[in-house]
Each structure stands twice: as structure tokens, then as C-alpha cells.
């Protein structure tokens, strides 16, 4: 019952007018930052840290956390409306979200995203209160070999994204991994495939590539036959209809669980939970072939997962002081600048900060919902701007976003180049998502594998002798082999 007392105390802190205001400002700023393509939550949060210098520590932390998950939602808005993911977590939402927008159903897409995010985030916050420490400690058992195995499972799920041709999807996956090889070798530090071009030392950069392939590519494709009649969205169409609600419930439920548990594993990154949730949803669906054409579960699932992940990832940060992602590292830096040390010590020394933050996360989720649902109409109306202004406008923000990463024109150039490639692949109907996924997972896999081998002294069997990684590898094998097996069984059944 002690926890309940703390919870109440936390709410009393969180509902102080000043703190409510900070949370609100954070949500607004975060959403705006997330909406901007390219300017991810990590950079955005870092930029806004100085604003918090003059605030008291609790207020500052509350505001920064609000910015963090506000940015998550903001990224969704651009994914749905213009196919440009705000950051990694929103990439999967583009697949069905944007298609829904093209059919005039941007409202329901954004709506279900807001609601799913709310439910996922709230659940994760609740779980944070109840089960933090033991879960986080268990998650520590995920060392490099387990992470490698998990990434292999992640990549194997590519088979769920294949669309028209499995071979094409596989080629695109390996293309992504090859792109990931450009730059400094993650272990030795020696540059690979850089041809002496300094900006390439750090690789091609995930953000310019994804903005190019998805965003710029999409704009180029649209240029062929720009929608000359504006897609009008009726106000009554702003929320999902009854059928859509029904299917979404399951998606939201599954997304919440998947996002939360993956959030506990440090260093996984936001794209994996969204991706896993999407593919799982597709596999349990009665109409998997419709995924990618604009089904609402394809939006509900990843969106719920990414908010549940974002809140779940707070757990290792608050309980163990381990930031699970770059954005959380920024938040941790902010903690430190304000003289607070995340970890169980903080729970004991300053319960007002920790529980105040937790309560504020609840309120923040509610605030985001209240903020964003009415705005859905506004965002949908934005799509009605004539394309001659709208697309250059979107490109303006893409250029801004790409440049802001490293203050380098090179990144903008990469974005344009991949825009052309994105156009070509869209016309060919080859899937783009596997490339993005591989681009992120590739380096992580290489690093995990090589660190695992360092731990074992060169012995590959470490991957199978440790129980968790062995299980995960078996899962990956099953996922990879099952489409082939099903194909053979179908043909055998026909004879």
C-alpha cells in the first residue's frame, strides 16, 4: 500500500498548476518537433534543454518527458499525412497510415493512433508503477548474444513485409545491410566503402535515407498525376467507424504488450517494437493480404506499440539509470544537469521527483489525447492545400530536417539521391520497408555479433549455449522457414 501512497503524492505534485503547464507545453513542443521530418525527438529534446535550465528539476524533467512522447505522436502525423516518418518509430505507420490518408481516411488513422498511443502509454505507465525493478533486472540478462538473436528474429520478420515478391523483399533487405556497411567499421573503427568522402565516415545516415526513400520518393511519384481534386475529409469521417473500432481493439491490445516488454530491453531502438507488432498483427489477421493498402489495424498496432515502448523504456532509466535510447540518454543528461541521479537511489532520496514524473506521464498521455483528437481535423485539412504549395512546403521541412542533423548539405544530397531511388522502387513495386529496417538493424547486428564473440573469445557456440539466445534463434528459423513450408504444402495439397 506504500506504493499507493506514493502514487497519491505523485499526483499531488503532478497536478500543481506549474507542473501541469510544463507538461502541456512539453506536449505541444514535442508534437511540433515530431511533426518536423528529420528533426527527431533526440535532437529536439537536446535543443530544448536550455529552456529548462531556469525551471526547478521536477518541472524540467516533466517538460522534457512530455516533449519526448509528444514527439512520438508528432512523428505519426507526418507519417500518415505525407509518408515522411518523423523518426524511426513512425516508419511502419507509413505503410498503412498513408494509404488510409490517400483514401480520405486520414482522420480515423490519426484518431486511432492517438487513442492507441494513449492506451499503450497508460498501460506502460501503470506497469511502471507496479513491476519496475524485477522486470528491469530480468531484462539485464539480455546481453550481446541475446540482442543479436533478437535482431535476427527482427530481420526474419521481413518475410511478413514481402508484398509482391519475396525475392525482391530479400534483395531490398540485403541492400539495406550493404548500405549500413558504409562508414566506420563498428568494432575496429576503420572506414569501409567511404572512398575518402569525410561525411561518409559515419555512414549514409538513417534519417536522410528514410526521408528520401519514403518522403521525397512519394512526392516524386505523386507528381506524375497530382491529385487535382482535393481529397475532402468530412468531419463525420474524423473518427474510426464501428467496424474499424472492433478490429483495432485486438491490435491495440497486442501492440501494448509487445511495445512494453521490448521497451525493457536496453538498446533495442524504437523501430523493432513497431515492426514486430505490425507483423504479428498481420499474421493473426483474417486478411493479411490487405495490409499495406490501408487497414486500420496496420496503424493501431505500431502506434500503440511505440508509445507503450516509449513509456516502458523509462523503466530501465528510472530503476537502473540505464538509458535505452539516444533520446532517453538526453533525458538522463537533463536529470544530471539538474542534479538528479536516476536509479533506485532516486526512488529513495527523491520520491517526489520519481512519482511526480510517473503521475505526470499519466496526465501527459491524457493531455496528448485531448490535444490531438480535435487537431486531427486541422491536420486533415492541411492535406487540402493545393499540391503546388503543399509539396514544396513539405520539401522545405525535409530539407530543414535533413540539414539539421549534422549541419551538412551532404545529408540533404543523400536525401535527394534516395528520393530518386525511392521513386524507382515504388514504380517497380519493390518494398522499401525492408531496406530501412536492415539499415538500422544491420550495424546493430554486426556490433552485437562481434561483441558476443569477444566475450566468448571467438567461440560461435555462445549463441546457442545461452538459453535466451538459443530460443530466439529457433524462433527466427521458424519464421524464416514457414512461408516456404506453407508454399510447399499448398502445392502438395493441390496435387
Amino acid at each position, binding site marked *: 500500500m506504500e506504493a499507493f501512497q506514493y502514487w497519491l503524492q505523485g499526483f499531488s505534485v503532478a497536478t500543481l498548476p506549474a507542473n501541469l503547464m510544463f507538461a502541456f507545453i512539453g506536449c505541444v513542443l514535442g508534437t511540433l518537433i515530431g511533426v518536423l521530418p528529420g528533426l527527431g525527438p533526440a535532437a529536439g529534446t537536446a535543443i530544448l534543454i536550455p529552456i529548462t535550465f531556469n525551471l526547478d528539476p521536477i518541472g524540467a524533467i516533466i517538460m522534457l518527458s512530455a516533449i519526448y512522447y509528444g514527439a512520438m505522436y508528432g512523428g505519426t502525423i507526418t507519417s500518415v499525412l505525407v509518408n515522411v516518418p518523423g523518426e524511426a518509430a513512425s516508419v511502419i505507420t507509413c505503410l498503412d497510415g498513408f494509404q488510409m490518408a490517400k483514401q480520405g481516411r486520414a482522420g480515423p488513422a490519426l484518431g486511432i493512433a492517438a487513442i492507441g498511443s494513449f492506451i499503450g502509454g497508460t498501460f506502460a505507465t501503470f506497469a511502471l508503477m507496479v513491476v519496475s525493478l524485477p522486470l528491469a533486472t530480468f531484462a539485464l540478462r539480455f*546481453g550481446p548474444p541475446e540482442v543479436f538473436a533478437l535482431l535476427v528474429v527482427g530481420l526474419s520478420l521481413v518475410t511478413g513485409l514481402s508484398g509482391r515478391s519475396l525475392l525482391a523483399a530479400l534483395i531490398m533487405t540485403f541492400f539495406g545491410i550493404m548500405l549500413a556497411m558504409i562508414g566506420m567499421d563498428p568494432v575496429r*573503427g576503420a572506414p569501409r566503402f567511404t572512398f575518402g568522402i569525410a561525411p561518409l565516415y559515419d555512414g549514409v545516415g538513417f534519417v536522410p535515407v528514410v526521408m528520401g526513400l519514403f518522403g521525397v520518393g512519394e512526392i516524386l511519384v505523386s507528381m506524375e498525376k497530382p491529385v487535382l481534386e482535393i481529397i475532402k475529409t468530412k468531419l463525420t469521417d474524423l473518427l474510426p467507424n464501428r467496424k474499424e473500432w472492433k478490429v483495432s481493439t485486438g491490435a491495440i491490445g497486442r501492440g501494448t504488450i509487445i511495445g512494453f516488454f521490448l521497451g525493457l530491453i536496453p538498446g533495442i531502438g524504437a523501430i523493432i517494437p513497431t515492426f514486430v507488432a505490425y507483423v504479428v498483427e498481420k499474421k493473426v489477421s483474417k486478411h493479411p493480404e490487405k495490409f499495406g493498402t490501408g487497414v486500420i489495424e496496420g496503424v493501431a498496432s505500431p502506434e500503440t506499440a511505440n508509445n507503450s515502448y516509449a513509456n516502458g523504456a523509462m523503466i530501465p532509466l528510472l530503476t537502473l539509470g*540505464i538509458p535505452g535510447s539516444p533520446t532517453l*540518454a538526453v533525458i538522463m543528461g537533463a536529470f*544530471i544537469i539538474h542534479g538528479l541521479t536516476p536509479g533506485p537511489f532516486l526512488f529513495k532520496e527523491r520520491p517526489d521527483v520519481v512519482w511526480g514524473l510517473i503521475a505526470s506521464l499519466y496526465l501527459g498521455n491524457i493531455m496528448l489525447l485531448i490535444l490531438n483528437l480535435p487537431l486531427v481535423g486541422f491536420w486533415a485539412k492541411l492535406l487540402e492545400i493545393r499540391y503546388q504549395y503543399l509539396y514544396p512546403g513539405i520539401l522545405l521541412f525535409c530539407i530543414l530536417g535533413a540539414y539539421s542533423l549534422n549541419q551538412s548539405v551532404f545529408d540533404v544530397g543523400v536525401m535527394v539521391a534516395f528520393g530518386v531511388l525511392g521513386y524507382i522502387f515504388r514504380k517497380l513495386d519493390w518494398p522499401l520497408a525492408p531496406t530501412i529496417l536492415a539499415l538500422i538493424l544491420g550495424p546493430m547486428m554486426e556490433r552485437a555479433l562481434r561483441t558476443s564473440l*569477444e*566475450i566468448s573469445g571467438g567461440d560461435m557456440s555462445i549463441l546457442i549455449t545461452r538459453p535466451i539466445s538459443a530460443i530466439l534463434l529457433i524462433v527466427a528459423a521458424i519464421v524464416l522457414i514457414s512461408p516456404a513450408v506453407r508454399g510447399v504444402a499448398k502445392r502438395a495439397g493441390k496435387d
Partner: protein
Amino acid sequence: MKRKFFFGLAVVSMAALVVSAYAADYPTKPITLMIPYAAGGSTDVGGRIVAAIAEKMIGQPIVVVNKAGAGGQIGWTELARQKPDGYYIGYINLPHILTTVLDPERKAIFKAEDIVPIISQALDPTTVSVRPDSPWKTLKDLIDDAKKKPGQIPAGIVGYLQDDEIGYLQLAEAAGAEMRKVYFDSAAPAITALLGGHVEVLFCTVGDNYTQWKAGRIRMLTIMDKERAKFYPDLPTTAEVGYPTVLSASTRGIAAPKGVPEPIMKKLQEVFKKAMMTKDHVEKLEAAGQPVKILVGEDFVKYYWESYKVAKKWVEYVRGK
């Protein structure tokens, strides 16, 4: 003859006047402070703290910019090629920047002479950290065990050919004990690995493990510094446990590209020294677990080149193998 002399004198005095007038005006626009690592890390935290204080003193905004990548190489390459007008300065970490330049495999396109140190902010010594339940209670326990099973104990190291690896190499050489090196490119995954039991011992700095130590999740065996650390008064130094030559630290400071006029350098040194010596700055840095160490101008330059010699020795040792 005389005419030439006076003419020369006139030119030189005009130049000096122009330069000092130029410096007297400096700065007339915002200054960029580049951090070669990702936001949220120790260098970034230290940089943002001092920038916020210094910009009030210098009268122009100091814009903090992150240029992360390649262990800092991306940022330093950028710093070296900037115009030396005093409007673009950046953080350097020793010995990281030196090993980057010296290591042939890194193919750095700038040289150690292309960067001129201005002032140092923190000197963060390497520690040998273990979990609280670890069987090794002293450094001697660890070394004895390592001699019994050479190359078997997984030892985490933060960064490649950086301070922590140099610390490990010095210890391995002095003690005659080899462990199994496991590399991590930043502190967070390294700490996670130690806590999760994937490595048994970790070579990292005070700034890296302070929060974990405060939480009671990490214990240390020794610190590689000449004196005991303010943060860990009970922790013996390497000298106290028999290895006085094993010294290693990560030093963070601000530098400029070569060629910045002397008056502007002096101004930068003054302002940052004042900023770093404020109570606010020292408190905030120490709250972050970073030991403040301010070396200004010539002192820092001397330290830079001394570290260069040490770095050279170890890079050749590692790459020579």
C-alpha cells in the same frame, strides 16, 4: 635602410592595431561550440553547462552543436577545417583525439598540430569496476585470478584505443596479467553488460559509473590517478596498490582550429576560465560526476603534447602486434 625599417615598423603597428581592434570587437556574432559526441553524454553535458554560463559573460550566444560519429573523428575533422576566426570552437577529448590521429587505420585527415587547445574542463580518471557481489575484493585478487587464467576473464573496455584501453594495457603490462577484452563504443552498453553479468570487470571513467556507484550497483577496485578522487574518498589509487605507473584519464576541454589570432585566443581563455571557476559550474559538473580540472592556455597545450607521447607509445604497441 632607415626608411625600410620605419616602414616595416609602421606596417607592423598598424597590423597590431587592426588585430587588437578586431579582437576588442570580438565577438560580434554567435559562437559555435561543437561537441563531437551525441547529446546526453558526459562531454555534451559538460559542454552545455559551461556554454550557458560563458555566453552571458562573453555577450554573444554560444550555440552548442552536436557532430557525433566515428568516436569523435567526424567532429574533430570538421573542427580542423573551420576558419580560425574564433567563431567555431569545439570539444576535444584526450587521449581520444590523439589516438585517432596516430592510428593508421583510422585514416584521419587532420593532424595533431591542426588543433590548438584553449582550456580544459574535466579530468576523468579510469577506474576498474566490478559488481558488488564479485569475488574480487581488491585489485590484487583480480590480478592473481587473471594470472591463473590468462585471457579468460571478460573485461569490458569503453572505446577503442581510448583512455580506458590505455589504462588496461598499462595495467596488463605492469602486472603481467592478460584479460579478454570486450569493446563497447559508449558507456551505457558497457555498464549494462557489467550489471547483466556479461562481462566480469569494466574499465571506465568516474563520469561513466558515478550514477551507478551512487545507486550501489557498482563497486570499484582502484582508480588510475595520482591522488584519491574527491568522489570516491575510500578508493585506493593505483600507486597505493602497487602500480604507480598505471595512470590513465579522459581529459575534456575546448580547442580551436590552428591559426586563431592571439588576442582572440586570450579572450576565449579568459572567459571560459571565469565561467568554469564559478560555483554554479563546479557544482553542476560535480553533480554529474565529473572532476573539474582547469588547465588554461599553455598548460593545456603542454598537457596535450605530453599525452601525445603516451598515446603514440600505446598505439604503436597495439597496431604493431
